[in-house]
């Protein structure tokens, strides 16, 4: 079991729509894996299935040697996740958010909380309510929280969306650092191709629910005879703009904008 994640023939169909269509891939331990694709290609659906939030229609997923479908709790202990939408409790302090996560994962040692808050440079702000934090601070806190139970895999679903270049840069430095020091396997999605190019050891491109290319950024560029990953990505997926129909999640995001003004 050298693979941190091993996916075989994974498929998810909603009523009349196949979101993920028979995909297979492996992510080696300790690597940074970028999962790229246009909007609606099936990225988020795949992450939801990998993280036990959504049951697949067929196929198998092994994570850290555990079957995600039948050994849910073992699998859950093996990964941490930073969701696309903020999932912190705004009315609690940074420290409380960490503490709650620790209790849910049965961790009694509070030293790790301190260590991680230092790592993401939020220790000074630990007793401040999360609602007073900037977008970048929230992301850092979420990353620290995702690492609390020492996961083998860290999922990052568009972690840098809506952040300024400084914060994005800092965030990636953090991620690279912990990939080295904690040997965490990182599974990330992003729309910023230069980030994927810089960060990822391996890249898979998904479109229309199928994986259309896999390899390092170099092999993808060679394969498409392009100079940058962005060009390679466009060569692979075409230049047509994908218009997704708004889902419940989008409506909720709209709602949140109106009410919270973020």
């Amino acid at each position, binding site marked *: 079991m050298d693979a941190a994640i091993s996916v075989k023939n994974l498929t998810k169909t909603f009523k009349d729509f196949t979101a993920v269509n028979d995909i297979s891939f492996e992510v080696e331990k300790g690597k940074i894996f970028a999962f790229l694709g246009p909007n609606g290609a099936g990225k988020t659906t795949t992450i939801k299935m990998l993280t036990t*939030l959504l049951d697949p229609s067929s196929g198998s997923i092994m994570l850290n040697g555990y079957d995600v479908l039948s050994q849910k709790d073992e699998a859950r202990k093996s990964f941490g996740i930073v969701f696309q939408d903020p999932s912190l409790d705004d*009315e*609690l302090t940074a420290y409380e958010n960490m503490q709650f996560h620790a*209790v*849910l994962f049965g961790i009694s040692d509070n030293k790790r909380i301190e260590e991680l808050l230092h790592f993401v440079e939020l220790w000074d702000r630990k007793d401040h309510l999360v609602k007073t934090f900037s977008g970048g601070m929230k992301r850092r806190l979420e990353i620290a929280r995702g690492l609390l139970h020492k996961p083998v895999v860290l999922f990052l679903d568009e972690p840098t969306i809506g952040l300024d270049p400084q914060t994005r840069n800092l965030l990636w430095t953090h991620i690279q650092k912990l990939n080295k020091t904690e040997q965490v396997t990182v599974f990330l999605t992003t729309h910023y191709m230069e980030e994927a190019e810089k960060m990822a050891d391996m890249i898979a491109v998904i479109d229309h629910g199928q994986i259309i290319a896999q390899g390092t950024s170099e092999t993808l560029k060679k394969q498409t005879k392009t100079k940058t990953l962005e060009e390679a990505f466009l060569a692979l997926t075409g230049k047509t703009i994908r218009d997704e129909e708004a889902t419940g999640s989008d*409506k*909720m995001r709209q*709602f949140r904008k109106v009410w919270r003004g973020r």
Partner: protein
Amino acid sequence: MNAIYILWLRELKRYFRSKARILGSLGQPLLFLFALGFGLGPVFQRAGQGNYFQFLAPGVIAMSILFTAIFAGIQVIWDKQFGFLKETLVAPVSRFNIMLGKTLGGATIATIQGIIVFLLSLVVGFRPELTLLPLMLLFMFLIAVFFTALGISIASQLSDMQGFQLIMNFLVQPVFFLSGALFPLGNLPKVFSYIVAIDPLSYGVDGIRGSLTGVTHFGLSVDIFVLGVLTVIVLSIGSYLFSKIQL
């Protein structure tokens, strides 16, 4: 166990930290107590039914619990997308325990809200008998658990807030207005009395009123029995639906 406790604690912390929410949610019950209590009092008196304020206060207490509880449950819609719930769903904790923690948290808040309204009604002039106070608390808690679990059950089936208005207008408001919180249940038209009898809140209002003023319509043991059974049923359905949540 720890997971249930921490989820419960989270609801309480959030409640006590938003003073605006506590104050805001006291406005409606106070308005009902004043406007209806003093406005309809003379008519009630002339109809030979006694002091309307004494009659109304338990109904308004039940109302504040109903609204707080349903709202605490419905918040799960929000929580599924932005919040702690999503984070708890990827934790190695059973869905049943998550549901239970959230329900108990919401129900505790709703009960506290009910107690605050009870104390306020004392200030405004409500004069209950206090011998059955523990029984009143039990009824308050039962209503609170029932409606929080109901709110969570509904929320687990919805994906955005569009349905919220529908639930308020076609479920929560009717449940309140048809419960006998505002009017005595004796001598009602037949069909209407059946409707009242299938409204779960009727038994809660009757129970609270019975334990505070000694006047009941169904009888305290019937109230406890019906509410108890309904609470177990909705908790079971709720935890089943909750366990089926797919994001």
